[in-house]
């Protein structure tokens, strides 16, 4: 049965109707999606076994299913450090991948990503302000103040863009231009803070902007997972309208799809995903841009597959970056944000070069 379906999908069987051949293609995509999910799972397990402390695969698996068998130190390493660390990589990658995919669709721009609208830069400004001037709010713990401030600034930048778009028109070009303006404004303000801040504060800001999974805790993980858990079903509810939008905005409008409203809803969702992800782990570049392209090259643009595949591709890239960040310099865990672009770019180029048609 399976072999028959895969042969049909190859497209050499004129005896089969187009519908049958398309169903075979869907079957193959489901298999690929499951394969992608399993690869992410394998990378998470590899992530759990990687780190300065020696921890074998069997110890890790045994420790997960039977925590009593671990020593106190092992239990702390597995349950308080590596598991939240590895799962945060998956969640953050998923958030950024999904946000990037939705943004590329509604902005009709293959270069769109959570950074395009300046959301990430706004979050960084929020964090930089909290690090530099948080002392004035001594009653709020620093580890809560920084992510809260990052998230508030990310949300505020989105609202600002929404307001500007509402007053001056919500066209794709206008939105992207507003985003670029926000991006440069935020970056200038971050540089200004760095210029006036002390050397210690500058170091903290720079470290935060590099992005690190070391800040992961179960509480933060639960918040990121909840946001992804809420946003993903809403995104999947819009798969037909988003897919329709890919064949043209005019066509989508002619079918009664309120494109401007859809775009605003999606951008708000993408900002929430980005804001939460960046608030807890710092700035992670590249994932939101590359993961959707990887998904598109393999799964096409039927959003039933494209959206979950983008989230999974983001998770895969982040998990892989997490593993690499721990093994690249023995005994040292590099900030994961440093690694994401370094591993993402070769993978991205390999995919593009394997498809001569390009990515747009």
């Amino acid at each position, binding site marked *: 049965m399976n072999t028959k379906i895969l042969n049909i999908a190859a*497209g050499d069987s004129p005896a089969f*109707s*187009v*519908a049958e*051949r*398309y169903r075979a*293609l869907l079957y193959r995509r489901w298999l690929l999606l499951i394969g992608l999910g399993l690869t992410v799972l394998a990378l998470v397990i590899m992530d759990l076994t990687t780190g300065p402390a020696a921890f074998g695969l069997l110890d890790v698996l045994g420790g997960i299913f039977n925590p009593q068998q671990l020593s106190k130190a092992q239990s702390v390493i597995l349950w308080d450090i590596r598991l939240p660390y590895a799962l945060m990589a998956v969640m953050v990658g998923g958030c950024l991948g999904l946000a990037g995919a939705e943004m590329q669709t509604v902005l*009709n721009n293959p270069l769109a990503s959570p950074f395009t609208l300046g959301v990430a830069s706004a979050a960084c400004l929020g964090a930089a302000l909290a690090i530099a001037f948080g002392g004035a709010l001594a009653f709020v713990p620093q580890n809560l103040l920084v992510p809260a401030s990052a998230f508030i600034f990310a949300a505020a930048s989105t609202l600002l863009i929404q307001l500007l778009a509402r007053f001056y028109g919500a066209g794709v070009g206008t939105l992207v231009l507003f985003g670029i303006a926000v991006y440069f404004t935020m970056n200038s303000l971050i540089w200004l803070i760095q210029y006036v801040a002390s050397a210690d504060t500058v170091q903290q800001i720079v470290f935060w902007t590099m992005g690190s999974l070391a800040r992961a805790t179960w509480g933060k993980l639960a918040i990121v997972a909840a946001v992804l858990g809420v946003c993903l079903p809403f995104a999947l509810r819009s798969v*037909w*309208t988003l*897919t*329709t939008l*890919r*064949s*043209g905005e*005019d*066509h*989508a*409008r*002619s*079918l*009664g*799809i309120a494109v401007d409203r859809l775009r605003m809803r999606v951008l708000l969702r993408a900002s929430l995903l980005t804001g939460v992800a960046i608030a807890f782990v710092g700035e992670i570049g590249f994932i939101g841009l590359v993961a959707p392209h990887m998904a*598109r090259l393999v799964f*096409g*643009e*039927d959003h039933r597959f494209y959206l979950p595949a983008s989230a999974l591709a983001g998770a895969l890239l982040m998990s892989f970056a997490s593993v690499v960040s721990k093994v690249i310099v023995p005994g040292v865990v590099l900030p994961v944000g440093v690694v994401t672009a370094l591993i993402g770019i070769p993978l991205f180029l390999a995919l593009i070069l394997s498809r001569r*048609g390009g990515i*747009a």
Partner: protein
Amino acid sequence: MTALTIEQLNVAYGKKPVLRDLTMEPVAPGSLVALLGANAVGKSTLLKSLAGLQHARGKVWLNDTELLSMPGAERVQKVGYLPQSLPQSTSLLVWEALCSGYRALRPDLASAVVERDVQGVLEQLGILDLALRPLSTLSGGQRQMVGLAQVLVRRPELLLLDEPTSALDMRWQLRVLELLHEICRDTGAVAVIAIHDLNLALRFCDWIAVLAQGGLIASGPARETISAELLRTAFGIEARVENCSLGWPIVVTDSAQMRRESNADAIRKNRRPLDAIA
């Protein structure tokens, strides 16, 4: 029964009026209507207004139903609009481009029905072989055929097609217009097509509506309405309307009214001759 009537339609972009009190006398069910007129005269605006994509005042009757006051969700079930822009060049498969729009519009339909209808319209248009190809691999003409399929698959009562044959070669232009004529005749649907090829319009369309200066300057059965005077007013051309050997009216253009400045005149006035510019 009257199929399509337009009464005192007014459309403006901001404060600039584009269509003023446009009225079209009743067009019979099953008619293929050619919307003619010079560039930038408001043909696309009129089609968008009828489709509910451009704010308009006035009345548009489709059978006994007034379209402009109808809720958008209800109107899109009756009206199919093909924009002038071609479907985007993306990695979406043709099959997916058709199924997604159809499903977005009719979530109540079973998958088998959607697949049957999509396969049917692709066969009808003769592009079934494109079904599993990404839009990015198609030519402009092929994408225009896909756009047409996206409209036809919904079987609307009113088809509004903005230059549906602009990217097609002569063979496909004939095929599309023959098909539209058949569909209208067989289903009673009305199709309004903005078109620049006057001879194709006269050959296939039952009715012509000629737009100029914000309103219709002529509207009626194609063969009876077309005239040299009308063409001069609408397009600024000198032309004759003659009958071909098969009896179809054809437009033979003689010249544009705007007199072309001769090269000798241009040189005398110290300007570059037109030929040199070209």
